[in-house]
């Protein structure tokens, strides 16, 4: 590799800036775990005494666990549905000469640049016009809309990243479309699929605004948290819960992005 002249020289000012930037990014988030160990009901700094009791209390609350269960159900279903649809759509976009490919891709990625409140409102209107009761299903339907762009954007580079001749070769060797898909396409794009599952799961798991409009009696975790934010005595428990969610999301996304490589970057590049 050739020496990249000045870019190989460390730039002290930029390094300092990068350090500050990362601190600003993470410090606020780290206060959630920190205060989840505080004994007091109110947030006061510095923390006087530490406790684990909020975590213990967390596991006694059936409502939390139920909300967690609901969130997982919704997120798993959304992740699977949007990834499956994403695989088909990404394959079509990457492999076939489709008239109007640009506008179609734009339409699919549209939910990325529409405020979620608009989707929440619009879908609420649709659902109530059709007299569909609000439930976890309606939340899931809403989440699929915002997860599809993420799934497609993660999968599309995967499809574009390998030679279409692989699939042709499999067809040429006597496999029909379905078997080509299972024997060649899926194994090759598997990292993309796993990444898409993880990312869409996380997006759905954390989504609040659409769930707020589309949720019924069964609460997802963010809805539950929103309800609990108003109650002072519930509050430290919410922080404990938030800490666990943070840990969990971090783990999932880290794995997802690592597997999916540059999917997320490509995505924004297109947007």
């Amino acid at each position: 590799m050739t020496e990249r002249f000045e870019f190989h020289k460390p730039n002290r000012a930029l390094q300092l800036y990068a350090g500050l930037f990362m601190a600003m990014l993470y410090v606020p988030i780290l206060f959630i775990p920190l205060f989840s160990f505080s004994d007091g009901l109110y947030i006061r700094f510095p923390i006087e005494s530490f406790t684990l009791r909020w975590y213990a209390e967390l596991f006694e609350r059936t409502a939390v666990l139920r909300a967690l269960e609901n969130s997982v159900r919704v997120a798993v279903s959304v992740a699977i549905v949007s990834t499956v649809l994403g695989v088909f759509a990404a394959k079509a976009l990457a492999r076939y000469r489709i008239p109007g490919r640009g506008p179609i891709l734009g339409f699919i990625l549209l939910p990325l640049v529409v405020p979620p409140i608009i989707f929440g409102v619009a879908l609420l209107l649709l659902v109530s016009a059709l007299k569909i009761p609000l439930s976890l299903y309606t939340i899931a339907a809403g989440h699929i809309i915002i997860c599809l762009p993420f799934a497609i954007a993660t999968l599309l580079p995967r499809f574009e990243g390998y030679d279409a001749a692989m699939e042709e070769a499999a067809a040429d060797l006597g496999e029909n479309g379905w078997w080509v898909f299972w024997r060649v396409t899926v194994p090759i794009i598997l990292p993309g699929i796993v990444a898409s599952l993880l990312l869409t799961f996380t997006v759905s798991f954390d989504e609040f605004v659409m769930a707020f409009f589309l949720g019924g009696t069964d609460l997802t975790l963010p809805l539950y948290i929103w309800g609990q934010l108003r109650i002072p005595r519930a509050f430290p428990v919410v922080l404990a819960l938030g800490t666990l969610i943070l840990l969990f999301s971090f783990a999932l996304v880290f794995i997802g992005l690592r597997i999916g490589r540059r999917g997320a970057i490509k995505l924004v590049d297109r947007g």
Partner: protein
Amino acid sequence: MEESPSAARMPLRNRLQGVLIRHESLRGFLLLAPALVILGITVAVPFLLMSAMSLWTQIGFDYADDWSLRNYTAILTEPLYTTLLLRSLTMAMVATFVTVVLVYPMAYFLAFHVHSNKLIWLIIITLPFWTSYLLRVFAWRVILGYEGVINSGLMELGLIGEPLQFLLYSRVAVIITLAHAWAAFAFLPIYVSLEKIDKSMLEASADLGEPPVMRFFRVILPLSMPGVIAGTFLMFIPTVGDYVTPTLVGGPDAAMIGNLIQLQFGTINNWPMGAALAITMILSITLVGLFFMALMHGLRRWAR
């Protein structure tokens, strides 16, 4: 040579197969269909419904579907709506501008000065974006609060005698929170556009004796503009409609249009007005977006 079976005598299955083989785009559309149908039903139809409803009027618990522009007239004439709309646009713009400016040097650093483990850096930078928005907003309450981290810290250091009040429940709080929450969205496209710049071209311009500062303004900045524009849009548009942040950290002067829309569908119970506000919001975002694009276009011409 064998007689080829005539089309009519072929079983339907084979005929369909034949059609699919001959028409590649048809195969593509079949694969796309599930995604497009779902998006069509969940995006296009509700938007039409929303447009229709925005022309109705709420009377008590019922709608009068007498098709009038009453809601829009109210939005345009009553200061409440115009103020909130303008404020939302302004605050989103300020937050976006601040974020893009803060994020650019970081993206530059990562694109040009980091040579190994870029992926890990990228993951670490984007990680917070994937975690609960609610909790991130919440974290800022902890920091900006009256007895929050900043105030306690400054008091401890003896720099202030009394907690700063403008930190929480203010527009500043909303802008800081938005900037933090959306940093990743602005960061990625800028980074990608910087990363794409051919480094050898920069070496060439250095060879020609251009000083680094000029090189930045004449080569790097213009080449990264598409990323800056993409980042601006990706952050600006969703933030205009945000209502969680103003609710949690904004005070009376920081309410945004999203709050009002949400209220129309809740406490105020005027869905047609809510629909009209939502549509107005989309239209004004579009207008601002077009204006921004025109501005950028003009700037690029002028710079040439």
